[in-house]
């Protein structure tokens, strides 16, 4: 009898064969590990939400839903409202995406479709390196270099030429929601580029050849085939970027000006939910003050959750409308 056949026979006849097989193959261990890891994610998310809810009870009891619409934040008389921060977070992250998405998609398309082969690796590496820069560096650079030398003149220019638009009304400040928006748009760029480039690279060449074979130009192929084909992945990239923009703390805190401004103008200083927490949690000496800050955290948590759910639904609808798997 051959060695192989002998081993097989022994394994089959062992009284522990079932147990031994399972352990040897790693099935049990592997399955347990992955299930635990999966559950852990759910658990951590749920626990975070629960803790935020639990620890903001005082503030929730005192202000109720008015917390969301309250425009005042005065620790001295203990009157707390979240609206300026909610507004600042939403305005800066949406405008940041409006700037970053076209640029990021452009870079991704250049890297995956147009750049000469020798340039793709180094350029992609540089963009990803941008993601590795700590945000405090962005904040410092923003505060001392970017804001005075780029943002302020740019804000002045916008105000001079487009000042009739509410979002560009003066007076012009250096640290402002515009500064935060621009910094954020740079910071979310690597996420957008890296994911959407991978989305484009994953599109089968048959799609490109099919389009070009019908007389499409490269531009037509990209806009009419590749972008629709990769749409759900690109939306995923945008959502991740939005999540990052909404949660970004330190860099924004350093350049946004920290002001309870509620005007439409991007040129005014503002505040975000993440920055108010970062700025004041050490000073929150009373229980209500501390819990109001925690409730801000709860609102931020709920907002990101909401955005993600909406995004999932959006991606799911797009994916259902355009099945990307061929059945052939």
């Amino acid at each position: 009898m051959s060695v192989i056949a002998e081993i097989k026979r022994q394994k089959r006849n062992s009284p522990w064969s079932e147990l031994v097989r399972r352990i040897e193959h790693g099935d049990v261990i592997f399955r347990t590990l992955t299930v635990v890891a999966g559950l852990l994610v759910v658990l951590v998310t749920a626990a975070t939400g629960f803790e935020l809810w639990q620890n903001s009870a005082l503030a929730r009891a005192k202000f109720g839903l008015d917390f969301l619409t309250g425009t005042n934040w005065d620790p001295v008389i203990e009157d707390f409202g979240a609206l300026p921060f909610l507004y600042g977070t939403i305005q800066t992250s949406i405008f940041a995406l409006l700037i970053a998405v076209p640029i990021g998609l452009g870079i991704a398309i250049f890297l995956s479709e147009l750049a000469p082969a020798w340039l793709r690796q180094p350029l992609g590496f540089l963009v990803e390196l941008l993601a590795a820069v700590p945000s405090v560096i962005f904040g410092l650079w923003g505060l001392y270099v970017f804001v005075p030398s780029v943002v302020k003149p740019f804000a002045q220019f916008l105000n001079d030429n487009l000042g009739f638009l509410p979002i560009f009304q003066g007076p012009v400040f250096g640290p402002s929601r515009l500064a935060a928006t621009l910094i954020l748009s740079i910071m979310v760029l690597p996420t957008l580029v890296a994911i959407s480039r991978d989305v484009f690279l994953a599109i089968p060449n048959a799609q490109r050849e099919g389009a070009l074979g019908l007389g499409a130009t490269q531009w037509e192929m990209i806009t009419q085939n590749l972008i629709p084909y990769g749409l759900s992945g690109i939306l995923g990239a945008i959502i991740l970027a939005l999540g990052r923009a909404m949660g970004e703390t330190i860099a924004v805190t350093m350049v946004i000006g920290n002001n309870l401004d509620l005007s439409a103008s991007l040129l005014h200083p503002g505040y975000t939910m993440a920055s108010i927490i970062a700025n004041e949690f050490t000073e929150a000496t009373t229980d209500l003050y501390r819990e109001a800050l925690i409730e801000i955290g709860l609102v931020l948590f709920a907002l990101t959750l909401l955005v993600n759910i909406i995004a999932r639904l959006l991606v799911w609808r797009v994916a259902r409308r355009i099945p990307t798997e061929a059945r052939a």
Partner: protein
Amino acid sequence: MMSHEQVQVLPPALSMRSVQKDAAPSPKMLVRNMNFYYGSFRALADINLEFPENQITAIIGPSGCGKSTLLRTLDRMNDLVPHARVEGEILLDGENIYAPNMDVVSVRRRVGMVFQRPNPFPKSIYDNVIYGPRLLGIRDKKVLDEIVEKSLRGSALWDEVKDKLHESGLALSGGQQQRLCIARMIAVEPEVVLMDEPCSALDPVATIKIEDLMRDLRNNYTIIIVTHNMQQAARVSDYTAMMMMRPDRAGEMIEFNKTRQIFTNPQDKRTEDYVTGRFG
């Protein structure tokens, strides 16, 4: 003087056939002294070949001999491949498609391609077919509707899909998808149709349908098909080109003739061995 020049540029294939006094239709495409390189590697060596108008020409040969590469040079699909380079000339109605002033997009509108695996776009059947016409600027719904019906009838798919034109092209079976790709291509009314093993991913029933379709299309198009399947070449083609790989791994053309000749009375021993199934 002129006739002297003409004699000089005659490819071997053409002179070989003219010896047999088989009057062929005028060539729609002509490949002259063509060499193809991937970087420094020569993949095709000194290809000379003609594709007669409104005929089906099959390109056969063992794996790796460069059949697909040759086919893809005919609509400049290899332009996409980094470091790919073509030497020599490929003439479409007497015009060199590799001439520096030649617009690659207009070449591809005149030379359509059907790929090995069906590659419908993830769009509706309707949108797949009007893809090309829309690129040409046609927006009129009525015109587009007509194009869709005509093209789908042309690819023998109309009856199967006329009630679900707005469903995804990917929901079709493999054979239907391939016919959708053919409809999509004939919607732009190319003059030459290239088919790269169009049936290799299909079952026998779907294969027969595509082959019937090729015979129908032959009246309006010049068809060039690469196939591994010698029965298929024998069944559908009027002319057959036999390719082999040389010892330096470059593909070369070893025989071109009427299909009947190639399969019944091949001139080259290697062709005979190949078509009789002695290797390949």
